[in-house]
């Protein structure tokens, strides 16, 4: 079975979480690629992968890309050649830099497969349209990268790579998407704590969604972490309001993409904290509209100083001043971040995928669809 044929069987199929027959571990790059999608699918617990089984070898611009048509693009020099070399030297002891190189290549493969995952029956066209909405790309990249980092060792084990490259699970590879990952991790950890979920569960759940479902799912987690589901009538608009706040906050993260990783990571973490504060403030404001304030929080009216006050006919409640809730006092004045980008004129629009060749077992022919010079 060719890599394409084997992988094609993966696409848009229900998950086989407990395969009866174990697969033999890949013994070549072709076999690794053939199994890469199915193993990622099983690892994730998603309903389907949109991967069509094709791998396109690129040279130059693209390192890794999960195309909306289901094709996986991987760079020859940084991804495919190192993995080819890994199998040519299977079982041999390698230097740490070489193992790091292998690990980064496989992390990219897993990250790109994460983009193909979704619920059973999910539409790639719907996902593609949703990906253009504010905040969607930032969330999906952050989730895909965080999930790939967290599950890479398991992925390597399932593919038998730890036997091919002994020591590969003992080295660390630097992650990517520093502008998104810290924010995704902070938001996820906050929601896990509020919803009594275990560590990593929110990222796992989001990773099983396409772009069409990720932000709405995140908004639901925020909404359900409050008392609003018990206070509001079904169909209340608060959840959509929270989603719009999430989208705006996530969209701001791309401001940090062009900065060095350390700075981007720090700003990502800070921005997520501000976004969470904004969300919680909005949620608590909505909650306060549905609950009466307990008497213990009321500030007693000032002592009467004039006889006229004693004879006032104003209703009693008008003389009771409610103290602002502590969170409102603490958060007053906080607004979403307003990052700054350099004002540089935009070039003409492009959008295709750059230089590529079709990856087939034993050959690297030219890709029929010319995608040269795109994205430049």
């Amino acid at each position, binding site marked *: 079975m060719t890599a394409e044929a084997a992988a094609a069987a993966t696409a848009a199929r229900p998950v086989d979480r407990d395969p009866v027959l174990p697969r033999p571990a890949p013994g070549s790059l072709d076999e690794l690629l053939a199994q890469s999608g199915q193993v990622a699918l099983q690892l994730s617990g998603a309903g389907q992968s949109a991967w069509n089984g094709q791998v396109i070898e690129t040279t130059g*611009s*693209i*390192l*890794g*890309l*999960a*195309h*909306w048509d289901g094709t996986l693009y991987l760079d020859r020099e*940084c991804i495919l050649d190192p993995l080819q070399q890994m199998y040519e030297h299977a079982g041999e002891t390698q230097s740490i830099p070489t193992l790091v190189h292998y690990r*980064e290549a496989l992390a*990219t493969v897993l990250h790109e497969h994460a*983009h193909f995952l979704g619920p059973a029956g999910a539409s790639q066209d719907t996902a*593609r*349209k949703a*990906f*253009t909405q*504010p*905040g969607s*790309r930032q969330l999906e*990249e952050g989730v895909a990268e965080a999930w790939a980092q967290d599950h890479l060792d398991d992925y390597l084990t399932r593919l038998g790579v730890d036997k091919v490259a002994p020591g590969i699970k003992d080295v660390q590879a*630097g992650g*990517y*998407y*520093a*502008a998104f990952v810290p924010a995704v991790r902070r938001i996820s950890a906050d929601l896990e704590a509020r919803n009594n979920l275990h560590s990593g569960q929110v990222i796992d759940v989001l990773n099983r969604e396409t772009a069409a479902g990720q932000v709405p799912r995140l908004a639901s987690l925020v909404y359900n972490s409050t008392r609003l589901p018990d206070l509001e009538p079904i169909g209340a608009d608060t959840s959509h309001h929270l989603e719009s706040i999430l*989208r*705006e906050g996530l*969209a*701001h993260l*791309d*401001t940090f*993409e*062009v900065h*060095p*990783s350390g700075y981007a990571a720090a700003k990502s973490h800070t921005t997520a904290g501000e976004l969470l504060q904004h969300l919680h403030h909005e949620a608590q404001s909505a909650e306060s509209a549905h609950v009466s304030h307990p008497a213990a929080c009321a500030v007693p009216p000032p002592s009467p100083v004039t006889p006229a006050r004693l004879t006032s006919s104003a209703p009693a409640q008008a003389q009771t001043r409610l103290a602002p809730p502590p969170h409102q006092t603490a958060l007053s004045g906080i607004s979403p971040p*307003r*990052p*700054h*980008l*350099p*004002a*540089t*004129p*935009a*070039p*003409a*629009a*492009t*959008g*295709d*995928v*750059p230089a590529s060749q079709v990856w087939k077992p034993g050959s690297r022919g030219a890709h029929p669809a010319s995608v040269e010079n*795109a*994205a*430049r």
Partner: protein
Amino acid sequence: MEHSNPTSPDATARSTPAERQARTDWLVTELGRLAAAADGPHEQASIRRTADSLVRLAIAFGS
């Protein structure tokens, strides 16, 4: 008359799809320039990964 700037942060969240696409294309070009001048292979790979993501977005806009 004031025109929206595709590179401004507010354009990201509140602009039209066409404006966001223009901003995406600008970022892809800018990242290509930054990758060429990056310090070290990891920083270069990081920039290239970001560019990959924006190319994916550009394809989504253009499909």
